[in-house]
């Protein structure tokens, strides 16, 4: 079992869209996948056309096992939904023994090939606990100064986790990529200069990605030929297809 986490303390950078797209993509690729919503906004369920529910709360506070909490939503894809009760679960974790190990403990024996954790845009015990449980972190970021600063913060948290003896692999996924604006290009160059091979091909800005959740569909269902999925075309890499290819390499151990 591999645990992938989507993290960036900056909000609105495409964490949930990426989590939903990758989780469903992995499921379509035959991986038995669990998507866990750690955000009290509960938008994972919304994006997949389900009701928000206190799944994470039941998992952590009521200590129910994963199979009784997870909701099957597509072939090969189960979801632990979230809602505002996730906030209460967080308070329970804070006062528990070994709070940073909670997520690893509750997911330990979950019968899945891959677990995708969609984090809230915050920097708290849930964040550290999720990182402690993870094998790989994907950091989506918009290409603006504040979001890129969020990347630095996410990496600082990972440094904190590394000090506790847990080293994590990571990649940075530029999202909302608009090749026509100078600031986008400047920030992409800065990211590549700083993080070189950790930067993956960007996801183009695409209205379809905003529309899909309104219909409760993943991008693979709603618009599989859109720029967000296939990139700008012309033989160039980019979009979630490229991201999926790299995630599969991570899962198969081809990416260190």
């Amino acid at each position, binding site marked *: 079992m591999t645990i992938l986490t989507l993290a960036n303390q900056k909000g609105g950078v495409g964490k949930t869209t990426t989590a939903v797209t990758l989780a469903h993509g992995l499921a379509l690729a035959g991986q038995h996948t669990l998507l866990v919503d750690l955000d009290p906004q509960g938008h994972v369920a919304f994006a997949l056309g389900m009701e928000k529910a206190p799944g994470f709360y039941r998992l952590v506070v009521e200590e129910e096992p994963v199979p009784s909490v997870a909701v099957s939503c597509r072939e090969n894809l189960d979801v632990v939904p979230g809602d505002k009760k996730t906030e209460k679960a967080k308070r329970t974790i804070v006062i528990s023994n070994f709070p940073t190990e909670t997520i690893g403990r509750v997911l330990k024996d979950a019968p899945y090939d891959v677990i995708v954790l969609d984090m809230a845009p915050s920097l708290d015990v849930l964040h550290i606990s999720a990182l402690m449980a993870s094998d790989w972190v994907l950091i989506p970021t918009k290409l603006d100064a504040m979001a890129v600063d969020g990347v630095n913060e996410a990496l600082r948290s990972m440094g904190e986790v590394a000090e506790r003896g847990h080293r994590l692999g990571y990649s940075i996924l530029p999202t909302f990529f608009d*090749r026509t604006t100078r600031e986008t290009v400047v920030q992409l160059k800065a990211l590549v200069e700083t993080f070189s091979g950790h930067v993956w091909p*960007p996801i183009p800005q695409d209205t379809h990605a905003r529309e899909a959740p309104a219909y409760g569909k993943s991008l693979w269902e709603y618009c599989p030929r859109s720029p967000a999925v296939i990139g700008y075309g012309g033989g160039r*890499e980019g979009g979630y297809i490229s991201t999926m290819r790299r995630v599969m390499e991570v899962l198969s151990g081809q990416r260190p």
Partner: protein
Amino acid sequence: MVSVLDRKQVVDPAVAEMLQDLEKKNRIAKLPKPEQNKARKDAARHKVGLDLPPSLHDVLHRIAEKEKISLSGLVTFYLYRGVVNHDANCEELSPYKRFSRCPRFEYVLDFTELEKPK
């Protein structure tokens, strides 16, 4: 076998290619308006400038005139043939490689042998 002098690709190749494209577009955008269209067309045609030894240029020019084809077409033809040969025999460049002093490239190609009349 990988040589110890092979430069490692650190940046994701797709990202590097995208940055190159963006930089090219940026360069074109900075040109005066009348030159932008020409530069865009050249970029789309993958027009490149080559440093050819004058003797080779003369020979190519002569062949192109004799065959009644464009110099560009002739060079493209020979490049295709060279690429096919290279795919079949990756070591064919080795006898001509010399270490470069330029920081951008590790080797330069030395054409002295090829320039000698046969």
